[in-house]
């Protein structure tokens, strides 16, 4: 039964993937530009609320949390273990709660409504929202507790989402955010607008965990307000969806497991930026140049950003997903019956697996409704044609890629009447910091971007490439299944389905932290990849074989070139681990080490894989090896240390290498 229901779970997801009917967008800034912001901020705000809500003040929630059996239990436990008086620990819990708790006040909300109107109008051309999604959300909020799960690309995400809900007269969410603790004034303002804060890491602190979990659950159970948090845990620096974190998700799912609520709605939300506010910061960060700490003064300096333009934002509110429906038939129904519900209990393996599946499902739903701008397509083409590309050719290839993307189910924002030239041109204008037009050729803007001590050409070039890659990356999760089939085809140089599949499967494992795959359905992913390739006439399949068509080789090589930076990057990183490292190391040592290693190769011209400099890729590659058992990860008092199993890494590398076509001299020489 388990198996059957599991595959049902997957099936429903597949079905959703194929039957795409998306809502229309409305620009909410349009009205802001026409009418008074002040009046808007002072409008009558009476959001719909959960049908079972018993109204209460933020402070009442806090005291309910402190008095809850759950928190009291942990307090007593800790008091006993540490020989402290429970009062002292209670005091500590109160402080934690004060540091964390939100204090939503309408005044602050109105203040934000006013200032954000001003700022957003300055920064963005349009903020487009699917109104049907808002209506669905409105109904969902009344019916059951709601959890909002937006994608996370920028600090703008949660400001924008609250602003949006205010605009549509919906209850403002309470937000679990791990940020802004250092910013006193803004922090307090955000708190009053409904944000609550969690420490970035509180691994060992049981009291903190208990208070935090109970705080979230109390708000959820009472239906106080929608709960919002980011599955990705942090802003994705690469614009590629990060693998999900499970902690918060399992907290919000628990009231349903324990049947304290009848159901809970999970709402995937896709927020797509035509140009990401923090793009250059991210690129620096990925290259290891420390980012400025978030501070109020830092934010003020960022004011110069206000004079820049950041294009359009698309916010797609997905279909609310009923947790009850997801769980039906999946979860042994009585895991919590034999222990009092307030006792902290480690979730069973069943439940952990379910939480993980739900997390991936939600991220896949986010990805499905991400809006791709023409520039995303152009960036993907451009990166395969460096250092310079003929403008007309870029336009032609971009248009070609548009068709392919749509075949693969990508959601492109390309108005019907907009000609390709204009589309690409406007992308270039918006992203003039990344690329520009010189003598009919498009080139990367890799010189004199910003003044600074780092004068090396390699570094500048890496910056430009990483920034450009941020846009191409938005395509990757849409393309990953057919592309890995294409890569596997090239690597195996065989047409036998079996071989191609085993190579696909290997790649999927290797890249399990790089791209988003629903756990455990390798064959389904392979079939979907093949299906999409067949759909665009790139390959033909028989019972035993699959081979590219005449016309298809263009597509196949484009797709595999798209993922080449990852294949090559991982090879470099694995090589570093297999050759350069002898004993155990920490993550802090690993990233600079591998960066230097790649940097030197780049300087010598032994590789062109600039993306291997990205700390994101480096960490993902390491995580993949840990998962494959080739690297052992051990928890120490001061973080994690790693031990390389040379033999295993070499074996993985061999599998990679042996399948690399001969025309890859770079890899061969290494």
């Amino acid at each position, binding site marked *: 039964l388990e198996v059957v229901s599991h595959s049902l779970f997957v099936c429903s997801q597949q079905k959703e993937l194929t039957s795409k009917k998306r809502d229309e967008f409305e620009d909410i800034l349009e009205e802001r530009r026409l009418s008074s912001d002040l009046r808007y901020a002072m409008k009558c705000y009476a959001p719909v609320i959960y049908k079972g809500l018993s109204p209460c003040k933020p402070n009442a929630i806090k005291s309910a949390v402190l008095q809850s059996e759950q928190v009291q239990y942990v307090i007593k436990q800790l008091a006993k273990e540490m020989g402290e008086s429970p009062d002292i620990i209670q005091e500590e819990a109160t402080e934690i709660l004060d540091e964390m708790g939100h204090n939503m006040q309408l005044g602050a909300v109105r203040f934000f409504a006013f200032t954000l109107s001003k700022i957003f109008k300055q920064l963005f051309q349009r903020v487009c929202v699917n109104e049907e999604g808002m209506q669905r959300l409105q109904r969902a909020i009344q019916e059951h507790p709601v959890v909002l799960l937006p994608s996370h690309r920028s600090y703008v995400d949660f400001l924008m989402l609250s602003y949006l809900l205010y605009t549509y007269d919906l209850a403002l969410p309470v937000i679990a955010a791990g940020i802004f603790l250092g910013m006193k004034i803004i922090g307090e303002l955000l708190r009053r607008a409904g944000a609550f804060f969690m420490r970035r890491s509180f691994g060992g602190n049981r009291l903190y965990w208990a208070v935090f979990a109970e705080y979230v659950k109390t708000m959820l159970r009472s239906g106080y307000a929608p709960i919002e948090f980011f599955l990705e845990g942090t802003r994705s620096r690469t614009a590629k969806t990060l693998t999900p974190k499970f902690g918060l998700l399992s907290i919000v799912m628990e009231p349903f497991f324990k*049947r*304290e609520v*009848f159901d809970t709605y999970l709402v995937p939300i896709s927020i797509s930026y035509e140009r990401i506010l923090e793009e250059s910061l991210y690129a620096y960060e990925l290259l290891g140049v420390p980012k400025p700490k978030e501070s109020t003064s830092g934010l003020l300096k960022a004011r110069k950003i206000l004079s820049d333009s950041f294009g359009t934002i698309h916010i797609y509110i997905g279909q609310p997903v009923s947790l009850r429906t997801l769980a039906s038939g999946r979860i042994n129904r*009585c895991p919590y019956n034999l222990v*009092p519900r307030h006792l902290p209990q480690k979730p069973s393996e069943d439940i952990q697996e379910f939480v993980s599946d739900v997390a991936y499902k939600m991220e896949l739903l986010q990805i499905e409704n991400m809006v791709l701008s023409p520039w995303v397509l152009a960036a993907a083409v451009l990166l395969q044609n460096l250092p310079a590309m003929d403008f007309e050719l870029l336009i032609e290839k971009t248009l070609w890629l548009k068709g392919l993307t749509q075949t693969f189910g990508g959601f492109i924002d390309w108005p019907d009447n907009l000609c390709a030239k204009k589309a690409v041109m406007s992308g270039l204008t918006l992203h003039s910091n990344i690329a520009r037009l010189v003598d009919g050729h498009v080139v990367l803007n890799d010189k004199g971007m910003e003044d600074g001590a780092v004068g090396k050409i390699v570094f500048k070039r890496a910056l430009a490439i990483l920034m450009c890659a941020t846009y191409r990356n938005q395509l990757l999760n849409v393309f990953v299944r057919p592309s890995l089939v294409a890569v596997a085809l090239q690597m195996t140089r065989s047409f036998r389905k079996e071989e191609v599949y085993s190579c696909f499967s290997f790649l999927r494992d290797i890249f399990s932290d790089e791209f988003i795959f629903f756990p455990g359905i390798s064959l389904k992913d392979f079939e979907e990849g093949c299906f999409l390739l067949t759909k665009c006439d790139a390959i033909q399949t028989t019972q035993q074989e699959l081979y590219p068509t005449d016309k298809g080789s263009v597509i196949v090589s484009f797709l595999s070139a798209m993922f080449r930076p990852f294949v090559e990057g991982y090879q470099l990183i694995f090589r570093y681990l297999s050759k350069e490292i002898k004993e155990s190391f920490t993550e802090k040592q690993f990233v600079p080490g591998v960066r230097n290693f790649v940097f030197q190769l780049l300087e010598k011209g032994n590789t062109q894989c600039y993306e291997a400099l990205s700390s994101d890729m480096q960490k993902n590659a390491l995580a993949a090896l840990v998962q494959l058992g080739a690297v052992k990860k051990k928890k120490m008092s001061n973080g994690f240390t790693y031990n390389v199993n040379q033999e295993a890494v070499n074996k993985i590398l061999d599998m990679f290498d042996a399948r690399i076509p001969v025309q890859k001299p770079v890899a061969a020489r290494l």
Partner: protein
Amino acid sequence: RQELLKWNGWGYNDSKFIFNKKGQAEFTGKRYRLGGMVLPTFKEWIEKTFGASLEHKTTSRASLNVNDVPPSIVNEEFLQDLRATNISYSQDAEDRVFRAHGHCLHEIFVLREGMFKRIPDIVVWPVCHEDVVKIVELACKHNLCLIPFGGGTSVSSALECPEEEKRTIVSLDTSQMNRILWIDEKNLTACVEAGIVGQDLENQLAESGFCTGHEPDSMEFSSLGGWVATRASGMKKNIYGNIEDLVIHIKMVTPRGIVEKNCQVPRMSTGPDIHHFIMGSEGTLGVVTEVTIKIRPVPEYQKYGSVVFPNFERGVACLREVAKQRCAPASIRLVDNAQFQFGHALKPQVASIFTSFLDGLKKFYITKFKGFDPNVLCVATLLFEGDREKVLQHEKQVYDIATKFGGLAAGEDNGQRGYMLTFVIAYLRDLGLDYYVIGESFETSVPWDRVLDLCRNVKERIVRECKEKGVQFAPFSTCRVTQTYDAGACVYFYFAFNYRGISDPIHVYEQIERAAREEILANGGSLSHHHGVGKLRKRWMKESISDVGLGMLRSVKEYVDPNNIFGNKNLL
């Protein structure tokens, strides 16, 4: 007795709900306090709650169609042996159909519109323990299937004959074993034959100034042996205990022989209590013939009472506190708002202007002055029993607790009506069936901390499932907390819906009931508090008592009844 009872519905022939010529609801007969009274607001309530209309009526067959009844197949040798014992028997179609069912919705539906696939081939009426011994011996000798039949009030499909049973099915009707064999005033026990019906038992004991105090809602019809076989629970268990607390000794006839103990003592430590193999065995092991049961002097004084709470949550909190202080009256029940309104709709026409004025005043006080929302408030009904003085003291203690939870005393009358409704509510289903409304009750037990979540979730699940299954009008889905214990409570659900527009209402009903049971289990509730498992809830036995637990029960069955003579297929 069979003549007094309905053949296709609940209870006595002369007692039923009807709509009189003026279109007002009325309860007929003189057996109940409600008898002969007009219920002026009931029709409106039905229409509002179910969207049912008096114009849309379905009617049951007027009488049993004998031609439809499966023929009686009994081997002649057995009949000869049976005649030799002088035990009376019958192969009459009506007698056999009457004993082929309990009172589950689907069974009543079959009676009204169809026919059972399998029914007993023959009914036998032993009059004493020895008769039963003879019958069981004959059944073993001729390899027959024996199904004990007591009051016939089962709501777990326990009395249905297994369709695939090829052997002759003998229905063993215990109703003629109905004597009190002796009363022991020194030890306060009585030995009673198992076929006695609850009401008769209490009446006869009362002649000597005693009672058992065991009052399940079905006590007018259900039998002592049936209580033992299903682990019954009585309304006044807070004073007298449930059946397992009341029973001192059981005599049961099994294919292996007679099982009994050597003494009649309050407690013994001789390994697992064999009574607990018998109680709840649901007729799968043998026939209970004689039971020694505790008796008490009839209480001097009885007093009803009721309390209104602003909402269900406060009411449950109050019951929990009462249980905690171990001061629960003989009975304490809390009905939710829907059931309160239902009870309200069954209020008879008031006799005088004065009472109607008083009612109005009460209503005004509660809703306007105290600010209770009539669509949220709920009511607890109470029954106190014992010495007059102690009762009054006890009453004060309970009302004091209730006040702490925002409760307002709402009078004796409301309390008494609440308990009377318990008995007549079973008659309502027959009325509903006439107007496309089907419904049933089910129950569970649950720890205190999960009571509210379970009640809310189960009711919501029912509403949801109805919607999904295409039920056009929102169902009536209501509950009451009907018993309190130290560690939890018994919750009773009523659920009914208008099935117009649905082609297979019984199937839809069963799917919804099943979903509701799944929901109960997921919320930490039990499979059953007192209705038992029968065949209706068998599928959940494994997860309820684990594989090993089930194996333990199976091995008892295999030892006691290796040839499955008691083949009703209940429980395991």
